[in-house]
Each structure stands twice: as C-alpha cells, then as structure tokens.
C-alpha cells in the first residue's frame, strides 16, 4: 500500500526542508574539504615520500615507504664504553670511571642510519646512552610532553585556587574577573615577547633585578640560555597566559553547584576541606574534564612560544615540523612529524575521554 501525499503536504515540506539543509551545509563542507580534509590527506600521503620543495618549485617525491618514520623514530639504548688508556686498561679518575664521549662513540658505529645522542644516564655503575636517528625530534617530543604535563598541572591547580577564591562574593569581584581576561586577551606572541624581556639574562630584566633585590639570587641567571631552565621558562609563560581560561571554566562549573548542598554539609558538620573533596570536586569533574582536554590538546601543539623565544635552539614538536618544512624544505619529513603529532593528540584525546567519561556529557 502506498500513501500518496499531495504536493504542499507535510512530506513536500519535509523534502524542501531537507533540500534547504543540504544547501546551507554546502559552504561549511566545502571549506572543511579545502582547509582540513584534503590538506590532511595530502600530508599523510607525502609523509611516505621524499618530497621537497626548492625555490618555489615543488619536486614531486618518490614513494619511500616508512623511511621518514624510521628516520624520525628509530631509537636505541646502548652502553657507553669506558675510555681505555694506552695499555688497554679502563681510565679511572678520582675513583670514577671515565667514559667515552657518547656522540663520538655513536658516530663510530656501523649502522645504516646515523644515530645521535639524545641524553646519557648513569645506572648500576654503567653509562647508557639513549641514541636516536633524529635526536632533535625525540628531544622535541620529550620536551613537549614535559611542557604539557607541567603546564596543565600547574594551570589546573592555580586555576582551581583562583576559581575558588573568586567564587565568594566580595567587593571588586567584577574588577578581578576583568583582570583575568587580560592575559587571555594578549596575543601569545606578544606575551612571549613581554616575558622574554622580563626574563632577560642580565639585571636589565625584571626577574633578575627583583630576585637579586629580595636576596634570592646572587648573580643573574640566563633563563633562556641555561638548558635545564628552557622548558620551565616556557611553562611559566604558558601558565600565566592560560590559567585565567582554566579559572573561568571552573568558575562557570562552580556556579552550577547548588548552594543548598554546601549548607546541608555545613549543618552536618563537614569542614571546608571535606566539603571540597566530597561536593565541589566530584560535581566539578565534568567541567574539569573538558577543561583538561582543551588545555592538554592545546599544550601538545604548542608552537608560538617555542618558535618566538628559541627559534631553532630548542624545539617543540610543532616547531620541529615547521622548521623541517620552512628551513629544510623537507616536505616528506615535516609531514611525517605532523602525522606523528596528529596521532599523539588523537590518542591523548581518546584516553582522556575514556578516563574521565566525558562522552556521557555529550548530547
């Protein structure tokens, strides 16, 4: 049995609605195809080639299989031999064994790909070296992960403190909330340059002047030139810039918690700490989850800070891929690095969503 619908009936209306919907979605999908889908597909394709470009002309690459990925990700851990004296005996200085230079040792090895030292570790009386074919990339991955963990953790803690403080009603709350938007509104590049100036290696910089004045430093510290301080300096800048965002999200989450719950808990004699852990934190979890995902994914793709302050002196994953493309003009390698970043971010997102159960909050 067929139901005939008259023209102008509900079905015709539904069909016209469907047609309108498709027309309205065309611009969005066209844009997505041009700026996201096709470029991503192309990046994946060229990550398997040795494509380069030079002087404006593109050189179509040949298929090289997993060569770029091997070049980026090959790693091994080796024991560094001790230095031997003329008689073939290990050299000992002050009771400590003397090791060969790890880099020179690796250079002597007869491997297909050339390995470079990422870093060395001393354990159980032997020295090990972590060697990689792209030491710079492995270091960039490590630095970016360390940066992400440190900055997201600090932002969450500070953001929570700020959100809880500002949740109380007090005179000047409006001003505080406005002040919170200042770091957020500043261009990341500009904030990098302001902090670059505040962290100058001489006492012309604020931190060196201030820390000497209050007696915490004896001599100026070269924050950006000292290897162990390079990543912490980035964390410091990022935390300043993004904590307000975290705090704003958490404040919005706090506002949705009914005050009666706190009142009831107070009547039951629960102290502030107890109230925080049994009411605030559990009820804030969905908001916290979303905020953590946003911030983690953002931190993993950090580019502006590292590129502006360090250039090629120290890479984040994204700035490594950028320099492979722009400075080395190595499209294949840059694409492979980009794919690795993409996969890492994807994995992180899935893990987070699984662990925090955000999907239940989706619509």
């Amino acid at each position: 049995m067929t139901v005939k619908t008259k023209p102008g009936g509900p079905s015709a209306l539904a069909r016209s609605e469907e047609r309108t919907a498709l027309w309205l979605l065309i611009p969005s999908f066209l844009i997505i195809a041009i700026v996201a889908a096709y470029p991503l597909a192309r990046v994946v394709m060229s990550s398997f080639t040795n494509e380069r470009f030079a002087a404006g002309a593109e050189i179509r690459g040949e298929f090289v299989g997993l060569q770029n990925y091997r070049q980026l990700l090959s790693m091994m851990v080796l024991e560094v031999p001790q230095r031997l004296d003329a008689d073939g005996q290990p050299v000992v200085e002050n009771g400590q064994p003397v090791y060969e230079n790890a880099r020179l040792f690796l250079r002597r090895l007869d491997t297909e790909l050339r390995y470079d030292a990422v870093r060395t570790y001393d354990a159980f009386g032997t020295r090990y070296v972590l060697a990689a074919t792209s030491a710079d990339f492995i270091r960039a991955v490590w630095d970016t992960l360390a940066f992400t963990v440190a900055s997201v953790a600090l932002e969450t803690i500070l953001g929570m403190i700020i959100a809880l403080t500002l949740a109380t009603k007090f005179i000047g709350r409006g001003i505080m909330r406005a002040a919170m938007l200042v770091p957020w509104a500043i261009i990341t590049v500009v904030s990098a340059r302001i902090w670059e100036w505040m962290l100058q290696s001489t006492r012309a910089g604020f931190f060196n002047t201030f820390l000497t004045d209050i007696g915490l430093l004896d001599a100026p510290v070269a924050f950006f030139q000292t290897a162990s301080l390079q990543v912490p300096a980035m964390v410091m800048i990022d935390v300043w810039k993004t904590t307000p965002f975290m705090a704003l999200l958490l404040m919005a989450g706090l506002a949705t918690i009914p005050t009666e719950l706190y009142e009831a808990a107070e009547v039951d004699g629960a102290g502030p700490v107890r109230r925080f852990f049994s009411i605030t934190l559990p009820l804030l979890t969905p908001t916290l989850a979303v905020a953590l995902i946003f911030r983690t994914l953002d931190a993993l793709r950090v580019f502006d800070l590292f590129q502006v302050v360090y250039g090629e002196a120290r890479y984040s994953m994204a700035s490594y891929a950028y320099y492979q493309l722009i400075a080395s003009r190595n499209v294949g390698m840059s694409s492979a690095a980009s794919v690795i970043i993409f996969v890492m971010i994807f994995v992180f997102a899935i893990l987070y969503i699984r662990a925090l159960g955000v999907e239940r909050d989706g619509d």
Partner: protein
Amino acid sequence: MGTRRNNLLKVLGQVGFWALIIVIFIYLIFPFYWATISALKTQSELIQTPATYWPQEPTLRNFRAVFQNPGFLRGLGNSIVVAGSVTLLSLVVGSFAGFALGKLRFRGRTPSLYVILAMTMFPQIAVLAGLYAVIRVLGMPALPSLVLSYMIFTLPFTVWVLTAFFKGLPVSLLQSAQVDGASTFQTFWKILLPLTAPALVTTGLLAFIQAWNEYLFALTFTTISPAARTVPVAMALFAGEIAREEPFGEIMAGAIVVTVPLIVLVMVFQNRIVAGLTAGAVKG
C-alpha cells in the same frame, strides 16, 4: 574568650583572603604593567642594570617609533582585514550550518555535526604542509589564504555554539512562518537570524580574537610575501632602527598598542565572552 578567639580567626581569614586576592591580581596584571613602564623608558634606562621599577624620565619616543614603523603599521592593517573577514565569513557560513543542524530535520544530521566538531581536534601543524601546497596550487595571495585557512579553527566553534542556540529557539517560530508561506530560508534569514544576535556577537568576538592571535599559518604563508605579515608575525620579527640590538622598548610599545584595543573590547563584552568560552564546557 572563645568568641574573641573566633573573631580573631575571622579577621585573620579576611586578611588572608584579601592578601590572596591582591597576589592573584598582581600576578595577572604585572607583565602588562612591566611592558607599559618599559615602553615609557628611554633607551639608556632600558639597558641600565639593575632595572628600575618606575620610568625615571618617561618618554613617548618608543610609541612614536612604533607608529613610524612601516612594517608594524602594515601588520596592524593586515590583521584588521584578516580578522574582520574571518569573523564575517565564519558567522555567515556558521549560521547557515548552525540553523540547518539546530532546527531542520534531514538525514545525516548527527554525522554532519560530528564531522564539523572533529575539526576542533585538528592540530594546525598537521595540515600545514598540505595547506601550503593547496595555496600554492590555487595561486592564492597571502591575505585571502589566511582568511580561508583560519576557518579551520573558527568554523567548528561557531557552528557548535550557533547550533546550540538555534536548537533553543522555539519550533513554533519556524512552523508559524512556514504556515504563512515563507520558505525555510526566508524564515531563517528574516525571523530566526535576528534572534540569534547575542550568540552572533559572542562567537564573532571569539573568532576575531582567535584570528587576531594566530601565528603559525601567518608566519608560514607570509614567508614569501612580507607585505602580508599580520601583527603577531610583525611582533615576532620586530626590527628597530638599529638592527644589532633587539629594540625591546619599541617591542613593548608595540605590545601595548596591539593589546589595549583588545582589552577594551574584552572589558566591554566580558559577560558575553565568558559565556562563549564556557559554552559547551558546562552543562547548565
């Protein structure tokens, strides 16, 4: 005795609370303060050690230099054009999609929403090389290509917020207009769109700020055409009259010039911005 002790605790609590507020305030504002006083210092005071906490002989020389710097001025112009166009384009395209996804019934609605949302996850760096190739093939000039490529981060957000907003509008509006013989598109354009004005302002502001802030694409796509550099690129590659030293006084003056308008904008629309930032993050 006990009450006096309680009172003392209360006072101490208050003092601690206000101390915390002040510390937070200083933390948030201080870099901006330091940039401002540095911009007002003379060249010799800038390189003097130890640094001074207040300009000894305030001067506007750095600001004058910035406004005479052709690269910086061009950057400002480019950024206004790019961020303005991005805002307009994402609002038009985004409200089309938001209306379709939020109010119309059609097959493939949920998958469409997911495809658009999936773009939020795209790290810009992952498409950089491919996008660069597309732009070279199309032979697109730098500024339009920036506008187009910024849609990758403004569009998903705009569509997401506007879809939610359209969904919240009563269906009866759509139905009564249809009964009156208006086409679906007319209903959207003439009746529903004006009602979404608050959401349009919010998403527009956020799109503008994101575009104003963007650096990776801007840096890459203007490598061969320095005339198209936007503010972040101009600030990163800032060169003063003397090439040897980094002209931090002028850089700080530039930082103030590009930040103050944005801060004013943010202050005026702060409620909307906070609402926009927290949309989607909080179910309320």
